[in-house]
Structure formats: structure tokens, C-alpha cells
């Protein structure tokens, strides 16, 4: 039986997570179908059709799916998913929102946030904020799985899958989209960036995050923050890296004024190289950093920007 992969998008662009999501799917079986559910999302379907290893792209283009409401998407994926062995989505706030509904309606368990595929029915996932790693085996007929995409590699965009329209409208009268305040940024997304530079409580206020921007521009980096910086109101919540924020694994992670609380480490410790800049040489972040620089970030950051 084939595998159904739910595509993450904003009705115009395919998100980078999907390339890694498909990599996870190819480790479970060979026949992959993607589902693009949205409104006026034909461009996304065309982009999705290029992902290597995919044989078919199903497109449910309907106003009911414009805002990815969990009630509507949940019904759609449940109805389509009955004929598949696995249903996969990225462990983003979209996937986390509707996938448990699908699992419940299909009367199967969900396996959340997998970081490794051992076989078609056995998966590895972090528990206790990554302080323990569990291996689980599912005997359910349909495996409903969300994937931590930062743990997988991107597939090539070299394929040419068949695109097939689906007319299946699942509307509901109990929930409605009111509005969204989305952060606009020219920088790469946190979860897809090759370099991430994050600020913590040591930044002292939101204005000082400008010190990170020049460096981010030179390195093509995304800007993140610790929970302490978000809770203090320096920056918005969508910049939070950590157990309850975004999980990132870039090639280079630069932690500035971040002490290294365990909840923050859970969100970035799989980065390839970690740099820590902190005035407290006892800060726990130095225990996991490849390169540590002890000093005043207000002197170091301008100097770093100038030397890049």
C-alpha cells in the first residue's frame, strides 16, 4: 500500500520542510502520494510534483482548505487516508493541529515527532524534551506519523509526478478563520536556514536584536530567540527556538546571550556547529558549544559583523 504525505504550504509556495518530509517517507515504502490541500494552490502542486520519489500529487483546491482549519483538513485526510499504509505530515503547528484528529477518526495511535525510521513500522522519537530517546513499534493498520523534518535530509527536486485533482469539499459550521498576524521577513525560515543566530535574555531589549541583523544578513542566517527573550517581550513568539518553540538543526548555530537552559538546548543541540557568545564563562551553553567566546556581546557583535 502507498504512503500519503501531507504537503505544507501557504497556497503559493512549497515549504522547504516538504523535501525532508518526503525523505522520511521514502524510508517507509516506495509508492508515495502527496496531498496538497489549499485554495488556489495549483502552483504548489506543480512544485510538489518535482520532488524525487513521488509518483502522484493529489490536489484538493477548495475555499474550505484556504486556512488549513483542523476540522476541515482532518476530515479530508481521514477520508483519503483510509486507503494508505502510512499518513505523514511535518511536525509543524499545522501538522500537530490536524493529524491527531485524523488518528482519532481512524481509531489508530499517532506517533509524534519522529527523528528516525528503523523500518516501516518502527520509529525513533525524542521524549522528555529530548532527554530520552524512545524506539516504538506500531501494529496499527494505518500509521499516522508526524516528522521532525530537521532530522532528515532534503530530497532532490528532479521528479515529475502525475498531478490529479480531487473534488472533495469538507466544510464545517463550528469553526471559522478570523485573522492572522504573520511575521514578514526577507530572511530564510528558522527551520530551513543553513545558519541561525539567536539572542537570549542577555540582549537586554528588543532593539538590541538589530545587532544580530547585520550578521544575519552577511551570513544569510535566520534570527531566533530563547524563551527568556520571548517571555520578556523582546521579540515575537514565532522566533522561539526550544522544546516548545521551533526545533532547528542548521550547519551553524550562534547563541548570543543565551545561558543554555535545557529547554533551549532541546531545540538546537543537533546543529552541526554551535558557537556561544556569553559574558558568563560558567554558562551551560559552553558545555555543548564547539566554539565559545566569553565576553560582552555589545562589543563582540559589531566586531563580528565587521570581520565577516
Amino acid at each position, binding site marked *: 500500500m502507498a504512503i500519503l504525505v501531507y504537503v505544507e504550504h501557504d497556497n503559493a509556495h512549497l515549504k522547504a520542510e516538504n523535501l525532508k518530509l518526503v525523505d522520511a517517507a521514502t524510508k517507509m515504502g516506495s509508492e508515495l502520494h502527496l496531498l496538497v490541500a489549499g485554495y488556489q494552490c495549483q502552483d504548489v502542486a506543480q512544485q510538489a510534483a518535482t520532488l524525487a520519489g513521488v509518483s502522484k500529487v493529489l490536489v484538493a483546491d477548495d475555499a474550505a482548505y484556504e486556512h488549513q482549519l*483542523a476540522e476541515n483538513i482532518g476530515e479530508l485526510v481521514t477520508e483519503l487516508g483510509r486507503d494508505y499504509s502510512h499518513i505523514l505530515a511535518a511536525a509543524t503547528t499545522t501538522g500537530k493541529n490536524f493529524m*491527531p484528529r485524523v488518528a482519532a477518526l481512524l481509531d489508530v495511535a499517532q506517533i509524534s515527532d519522529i527523528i528516525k525510521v528503523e523500518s516501516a513500522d518502527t520509529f525513533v522519537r525524542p521524549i522528555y524534551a529530548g532527554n530520552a530517546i524512545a524506539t516504538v513499534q506500531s501494529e*496499527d493498520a494505518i500509521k499516522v506519523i508526524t516528522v521532525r523534518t530537521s532530522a532528515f535530509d532534503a530530497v532532490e527536486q528532479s521528479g515529475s509526478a502525475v498531478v490529479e485533482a480531487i473534488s472533495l469539499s469538507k466544510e464545517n459550521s463550528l469553526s471559522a478563520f478570523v485573522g492572522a498576524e504573520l511575521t514578514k521577513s526577507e530572511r530564510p525560515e528558522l527551520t530551513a536556514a543553513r545558519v541561525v543566530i539567536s539572542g537570549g535574555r542577555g540582549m537586554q531589549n528588543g532593539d538590541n536584536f538589530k545587532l544580530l541583523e547585520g550578521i544575519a544578513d552577511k551570513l544569510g542566517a535566520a534570527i531566533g530567540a530563547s524563551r527568556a527573550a520571548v517571555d520578556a517581550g523582546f521579540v515575537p513568539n514565532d522566533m522561539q527556538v526550544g522544546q516548545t518553540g521551533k526545533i532547528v538543526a542548521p550547519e551553524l548555530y550562534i547563541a548570543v546571550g543565551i545561558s543554555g537552559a535545557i529547554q533551549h538546548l532541546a531545540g538546537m543541540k543537533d546543529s552541526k556547529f554551535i558557537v556561544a557568545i556569553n559574558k558568563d564563562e560558567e554558562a551551560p551553553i559552553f558545555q555543548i558549544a*564547539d566554539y565559545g567566546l566569553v565576553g560582552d556581546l555589545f562589543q563582540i557583535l559589531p566586531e563580528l559583523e565587521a570581520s565577516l
Partner: protein
Amino acid sequence: MKILVPVKRAIDYNVKVRVKSDQSGVDLANTKMAINPFCEIAVEEAVRLREQGIASEIVVVSIGDKACQEQIRTALALGADRGLHIETEQSLESLQIAKLLQKVVEAEQPQLVILGKQSIDSDNNQTGQMLAALCGLPQGTFASKVEISGDKVKVTREVDGGLQTVSLTLPAVVTTDLRLNEPRYASLPNIMKAKRKPLDVKAAADFGVELTSKVKLLKVEAPAQRQGGVKVADVAELVAKLKNEAKVI
């Protein structure tokens, strides 16, 4: 209006997690346990809704062995009115928990169910959504703001790109994110009063729900430890290492 708040007993978030040497799980013997932090935020939100005169009764439910009555008492001390303990020695998965809660929703008929978005032990982030689906209710997950007016609840949700707001027709299920509120501390008089609040106990086996999951836990291991590296003297040395050694810039 009646609010149902399911809560979970979990390891205290300050405790260092130790994996058992036989790889069967995490060692919880003699470990400090607490109400899961996201569940505590759910209790607080319910109590605030009652203080605003919107809620009239708050029922707290917890599923687990006898020890989870401690967490029900904590919730009662924070301001909930009565507790329900669904007793089982079995360790249950989200789907089984959601099915038991579905029975409680059918019996209690709450207008609003508020739960934590995830527990800090299993990190599943599933139960609220599963419960909503089983009951045919709308959901507002990862809430950072909850506003009730008439038969609607407006929920501001923390999503990857920022914030999203949805409007739900009651009854509905809401799951809490960290920034929804800051829970209060229970006062000593309220802790004493909580001991006299009603707490029903029912056996999980009596609910007619299949309690065995089809997911088997094969092993639990400690994560690979990351080794710390070196301290550099200045920015010039840092940039040189990143260029020549790490080759990432």
C-alpha cells in the same frame, strides 16, 4: 457555563531525567512529580474565566494511578470546584486517554474543555485534538488568548509564522500554550479548603473503552551526548576557526 479541565501528573520540570539501565523507560522512582506545566496553565485559565463571571463550575479530571489525586488536589487548591479521578494502573496512550475523556464529556456536558497542549514527559501533543475529533467539537490549539462572547470562543493561536485567530462555536476544545497566562500559587487556606472539595473516583475499566494501545515501546535510551569544544580568545580567532576548521562560513 461548565468547564472541564483534564490534567496530567508528570515529572517536575526541574528534575533531571534519568534513563533506566535496562532501557525499559525513564526512572521515576522517588522522583518529584507535579501537575504538567501546560495543564496548570489550563487550570489557571478556567479559574480566571470563573473570576470574570463567565464560568460557573470547573471540573478537574485526571487519569492514572492513585497518586494523581495529588495533582487533582493541587488543581482544586488553585480554584477548581470538584475532581474526578479515573483510576488505572496501566500506562495509557493519548488515544485511550481521549476515549476516556470523551465519556466524561458525554456525562458532564461541559461548554468548554481546556487542556495543556502537551505533557512534558511523552511530548505527544495529541490528546486535545483527539478528544475534539471524537466528540465532533471544534478546536483551538496552542492558545495564547481565549475570549468568550455568547456562544462563541475566539482563540488566538501560536503558529509557526506568528499568530492565527479562529472563532469556534461552543462547546469547544482549547489547548494551552505557554504564554496564555502565568499560573498563581495556591494559598495555604485554599490548600486546606481543597482537601474538603468533592473528589469522585471511578475505575477506568468501567468505562467500556479498550485500554490497550497498538504501539509498543521497544526501548528508551539516553541521547548521544554532545561534547563541548574549545574557548576562543577573540572574534578574529572565532572567524578563523569558522572559516578554516568548521568551513561553515
